[in-house]
């Protein structure tokens, strides 16, 4: 008989490692993905996703079930990755003042539009995925974390404000700037990307 998630959690809270592994199996892909988006490489993603899960096991007795277990795990992995990034203090950033390449606006629009309405293009295209990850990696940690929380983890502005312990206004403006920085990066590398596509064909 299939054991329910609530029962699994109860077992985990009694210290049952096997139950915890079963519970984790359901979410490990999502958790790994979040860690990867934060860190940008498999080695760190692997290490930090596991660190987050060990932490989750350690503190699962404190899980009271007000939020879903998924949200709870998301919070932990985001925290672990943010701490790590802060530790490393990565300096590579995208300047908000870098000019937007818009001298051929019409074409830019069409190009990006293709990406928007064709998620399958992203799914199938490894180069594009890598380019997007690169763009994320080049953002400041502050911008990167709000974008991952909003777009990958699906948090609301309110949840992000609570997570970062800042005001809604800060979240609004930070997401706005982060999106612009990301957009600028993508536009600047559009030509390079087109070239990669051409060569890979």
């Amino acid at each position: 008989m299939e054991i329910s998630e609530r029962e699994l959690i109860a077992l985990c809270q009694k210290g049952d490692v096997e139950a915890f592994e079963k519970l984790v199996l359901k979410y490990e892909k999502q958790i790994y993905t979040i860690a990867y988006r934060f860190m940008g490489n498999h080695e760190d993603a692997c290490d930090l996703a596991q660190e987050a899960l060990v932490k989750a096991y350690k503190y699962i007795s404190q899980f009271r079930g007000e939020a879903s277990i998924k949200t709870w795990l998301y919070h932990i992995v985001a925290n672990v990755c943010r701490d790590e990034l802060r530790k490393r203090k990565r300096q590579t950033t995208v300047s908000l003042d870098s000019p937007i390449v818009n001298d051929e606006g019409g074409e830019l629009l069409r190009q990006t539009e293709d990406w928007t309405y064709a998620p399958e293009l992203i799914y199938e295209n490894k180069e594009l995925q890598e380019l997007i990850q690169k763009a994320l990696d080049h953002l400041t940690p502050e911008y990167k974390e709000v974008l991952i929380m909003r777009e990958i983890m699906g948090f609301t502005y309110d949840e992000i404000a609570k997570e970062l312990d800042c005001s809604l206004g800060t979240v609004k403006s930070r997401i706005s700037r982060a999106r612009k920085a990301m957009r600028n990066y993508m536009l600047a590398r559009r030509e390079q990307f087109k070239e990669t596509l051409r060569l890979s064909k």
Partner: protein
Amino acid sequence: MECREIEELLSAYIDGELQGAEAFAVTEHLSRCSQCRWELLQLQETANLLRNLPEIEPPADFHWSLRQRLNSFKEDKPWYKRFNFNRWFGFGTVTAAALLLCMVVINALNPWQSLPQDSRELKQENIALQEQVSEQDLTPSDEKMATELGMSQLSPRISENLPEVEKQKPTAQESVAAKKAQEPVSSPSPQLFLASSPSSGEEQGAEESTEGQDLIQDTSLPEVEENFNYGSGFDGEEEKEAPVYLAAATKTMGRGEVHSLPTWHIYLKVKDINQAKFRLGQLMAAHGALIRNSDSAFLEVSLPVFSLDKVFNLMKHDYMLGATQVEITTGGNLPQKEVVELMEKIEFKQEELEVAKDGEEVLQLKQELKNLRWQLHAFNQDRNGREINNFLLKIYLQN
């Protein structure tokens, strides 16, 4: 507003996180500024790039090495935490020992009793107490305490050595305190913020609305009132009061009550039903509406009265909703003709206000608008003459 100000708002506009007036200003601006429309598209596309990224498969040995780490973490625990007391000592022994310890602690805390006592006397008294206690019926809370304090019974000196006992005292208190401290530690359930949480994807949007429905169905409150005060927007302060807020909302949503709310039927012709539905969810959330029901091409929401004309306007003009045709009719419980005429008048005045430059003219228009809105309010009464603060919107989407 100027392009520069609007640009700042576009990102929140995409997420449906703008307040009514701001959202309206942005929509208005977008309808006449192609540069900002281009900017909006760009930002939406950037957001979509990330949202559409696929999940990544962890490496093959991920689970295996996780198991190693979990096991080594488990072994890192101090010996007494790994030790399973219940297995080694019968339930009775542990409970009795724990109670004995409690008595000792109480004794130790009482200066009049414990100070003059000889340690040997104390020991004897405790043995007597232990016998007495083991005869009593044990309550579940005793069991709990026993497991919490279980390990302390291993100290053989405990009943002989008073300072040692006092050392145990904070431990017992700490464990109770820690237990209490754990209770309020929680993150808020995302479900509580249903109305204020725009979702990040279509699927999630649908999921949320069904959750909302469950929430509504599960709540059966006696004496449900039809009338409730629903805040206009969701600014920081109001969000803090979410639980109260939710209680109020759930109250109104009691089954059966909703049928008596004035109803509007809205038929929207759109290019992409999924996209439009997702966008509608965002707009509704931003205007304090509660999604009651949702189907593939249907949405039923309860909307605060004062957001009605703004929402109707957005339906006609919102760039991301992309409605090519909007048809609005009232349900049986609203005087169709008068209300629609009133709505049109409001819309007309609103447009006039947008282009008005003269200060006096603006003031006059604002006053007229206010009067018209009051007239609209007059329709918001149920059969018993009580004012209703919410309308029910049934929105049908077509291609």
